[in-house]
């Protein structure tokens, strides 16, 4: 594993929802401060569970997870570093306006009230949705809602931003534009981003490093550095080449969802010891 200072450290992480079967089978990974890391894995392997542990939503069975040196599984919520979370669906409160959705997280983060207005304006403008500040979320398009969700994650000055397949429900054109915008934002903000996806092309386009997981219960299959310089083009032949390499490597391990070639441990859930 590359020595990245370990801003986020995950060691021997196992998770079980029912106490019998593992959802994560032992994850070790590390993310440096300001790194953009993609977590790549097949559908249902436990990628989202990994983010839920990092955000404190799910307690692991074993292992240790630290963000900026704070153990997020054992430390009280108020002592944990702030985490911005962009969900697969926007998860905006439909009965609050766009601006109010942002103000709520600012209030919850304990930021002074006299800063809220400027922050809301700044981050909505940054995501090019400032004109929708007073709109109800249900009146926005999918892409606009996801931008609000990203603005919400950024507005609280998070130590880390967790993104769970945030563009998977968007159309191709909107998705590409959002990815490009995300890279620009990340370069401005320099926050650590852990971006979960099952799209290899998305991972190679966005990330500095890709953590490839096995089928569930997931373990780390391999960690790859993406050496392609930025700015990157989505159709860059070097990314296509890297994508092909990854496909070749994971083909045998991921297999097919309908029961094709899969590793023995992925055929049935791993029993908890």
């Amino acid at each position: 594993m590359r020595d990245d200072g370990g801003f986020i450290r995950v060691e021997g992480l196992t998770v079980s929802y029912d106490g019998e079967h593992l959802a994560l089978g032992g994850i070790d990974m590390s993310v440096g401060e300001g790194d953009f890391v993609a977590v790549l894995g097949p559908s249902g392997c436990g990628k989202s569970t990994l983010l839920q542990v990092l955000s404190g939503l799910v307690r692991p069975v074993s292992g240790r997870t630290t963000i900026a040196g704070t153990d997020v599984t054992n430390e009280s919520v108020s002592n944990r570093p702030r985490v911005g979370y962009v969900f697969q669906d926007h998860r905006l409160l439909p009965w609050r306006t766009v601006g109010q959705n942002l103000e709520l997280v600012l209030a919850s983060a304990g930021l002074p009230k006299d800063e809220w207005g400027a922050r809301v304006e700044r981050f909505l403008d940054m995501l090019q949705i400032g004109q929708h500040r007073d709109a109800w979320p249900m009146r926005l398009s999918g892409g606009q809602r996801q931008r609000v969700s990203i603005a919400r994650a950024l507005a609280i000055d998070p130590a880390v931003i967790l993104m769970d397949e945030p563009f998977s429900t968007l159309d191709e054109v909107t998705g590409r534009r959002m990815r490009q915008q995300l890279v620009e934002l990340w370069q401005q903000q320099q926050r650590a981003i852990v971006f979960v996806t099952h799209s290899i092309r998305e991972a190679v386009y966005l990330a500095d490093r890709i953590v490839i997981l096995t089928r569930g219960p997931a373990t780390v299959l391999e960690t790859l550095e993406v050496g392609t310089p930025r700015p990157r083009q989505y159709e860059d032949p070097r990314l296509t080449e890297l994508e092909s390499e990854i496909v070749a490597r994971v083909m045998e391990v991921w297999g097919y969802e309908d029961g094709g070639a899969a590793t023995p441990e992925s055929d049935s859930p791993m029993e908890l010891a």
Partner: protein
Amino acid sequence: METASLPLSGPGWRRRAAAAFSSDAFFGALGVLSFIALWYVGSRRTEFVPPIDEVIDAIPSFLTEEAIWPDIGASLARVVGALAVASVVGFGAAYLMARGRFWGLVTLRYVDLTIGLPSTIAALLALFIFKRSEVGVFVVVAIATFPFIALTLRQGFLAADRQLGDMASVYRFGVARELRNVSIPHLVPYSLAAIRNEYAHAWRVVVLAELFAVNSGIGWRFSQAFDRFLLVEVALWLLTFMVVLLGTEYMVLRPIERWALRWRGGHT
């Protein structure tokens, strides 16, 4: 680019409210006209339905009679008060039922029992238990309406969006902020639906209970007029009942509902 400008929140709900009002007004007018036609036919064919013109002639003196307003106010206060009690009890019952544990199952049995209890029987039982008292009216109305409110709110509790709860946890809303911004707003549509559905029911039960249990209110005045065979006065109280019931529903409840749910309008 997908960010085509869409209308903001401001005037949209007002436009929709105006459209809904026009639609309500049209169908309301249709209902009134058909009612008048039936009334006309009834008054020509039987002697138990007073002629329309006699009733219309009596309206000015009826409205200027000071004694009617306390009775209308008394009925209205009973409906609102009893619905408030039923809502509080229904909320608690819905919460217990949604949790599904022992007390939830016990509550469900009570809800099943009361939902099948005819309002007339409930009114007579209240008369036996509370004699002729104000408490009896409240109890009857609360018993008649609470199970429906409880069942509607239970659906709300069961449909609670866990994903929004996760979002609230990640962003550290805390219990009070989550309650105020996630849980309660989620229940608002269910509460409004329950109250609007039960409002008319509560009116019917209040009037029924007033026939038996108290010496005030629209129901009591209705029975007084009926006992003395004052058919024009019976018709006037019947009209008063309808005007107050429909007036408060269309002029108060529906606008409140439209305003409270204005965030729902318009999908892309």
